[in-house]
């Protein structure tokens, strides 16, 4: 696995983890806010991001979109599309974007669906 592939994989695995954290938080968050983990490519980064279920769900509608702490985006494969509430939403492009779609836990692909 190249370092680029590893970073892409890390982001995908953080996204899978966040899907689990969302499910776990559902029904126990009084204020509609829960914490996820930064979905950047650095495996050692486990910085927390507080987000609402509505905002999180909105981002997850786009399989190329990831939620990162500000400044964690990799301009070589993703662009910041919005910035608010202490986090950036980035969209991946090129091969990284296609891979993000394939690996989307909510997608229909054999590697994505239900693999989280």
């Amino acid at each position, binding site marked *: *696995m190249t370092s680029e592939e*590893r970073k892409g*994989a*890390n982001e995908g*695995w953080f996204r*899978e*983890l966040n*899907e*689990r*954290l969302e*499910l*776990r*938080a*559902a*029904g*126990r968050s009084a204020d509609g806010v829960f*914490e996820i*983990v930064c979905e950047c490519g650095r*495996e*050692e980064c*486990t910085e*927390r991001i*507080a987000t609402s279920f509505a905002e999180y769900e909105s981002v997850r509608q786009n399989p190329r979109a990831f939620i990162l702490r500000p400044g964690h985006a990799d301009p070589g494969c993703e662009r910041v599309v919005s910035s608010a509430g202490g986090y950036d939403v980035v969209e991946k492009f090129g091969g990284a974007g296609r891979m993000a779609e394939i690996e989307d836990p909510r997608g229909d692909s054999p590697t994505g669906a*239900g*693999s*989280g």
Partner: protein
Amino acid sequence: MSSGLLEIGAVARELGVAASTLRTWERRYRLVEPRRGAQGQRLYDSEQILVLRQVLLQLRRGNRARAAHDLALAPQPTGTSREQFEPSPEAPQRARRAIDALLAGGADARFGFHLRLVASELVKNAVLYGSGRDPIRMEARLFATHAELRVQNSGGRLSMKSLRSRRRDGGRGLDIVDALAEAWTIDTGPRGTKITVRLPLEPRPPSPPAAGDG
């Protein structure tokens, strides 16, 4: 002899035990019950021979015959790592490196990612909530289907309520553990805290938390 099956004499020679011992074990413990050939002879398959090897291994470790049979069915770790870390900010990274060394590049990449993540979060918690003086102990054991990770620190009893209420300083790492682990336990008391996590090689399907867990 049928294809792939060994008669009792061959098995006894291969394992270095008497055929009568194998018959006695079969009668007493019923752990390995070979099928029978056309003439009523015992025929052992490779799985059964593997179990018998485990029984012998447990006997060589000093266990009595019954205990050896009980232990033979318990999964054996394929690798073990025992580490001690000073309670410093570098400890989580050292935990990651120790897991890497244990996996030696041979494990599924996602499993390795999960194991490193859980190890570093637990060690981070141990640094944050431990005594700040005594070393943090980590033991990781790899099995064919899962890993078992244990992180232990000295210090006072953890308040689960206050741990849950901390949002930014790593106390929430237990959320990550809970999201990824097949099972986990926390044993906290006046002398310290021990957390044991069972992490599956294949992640379990995500599910909502059970009432009152975590």
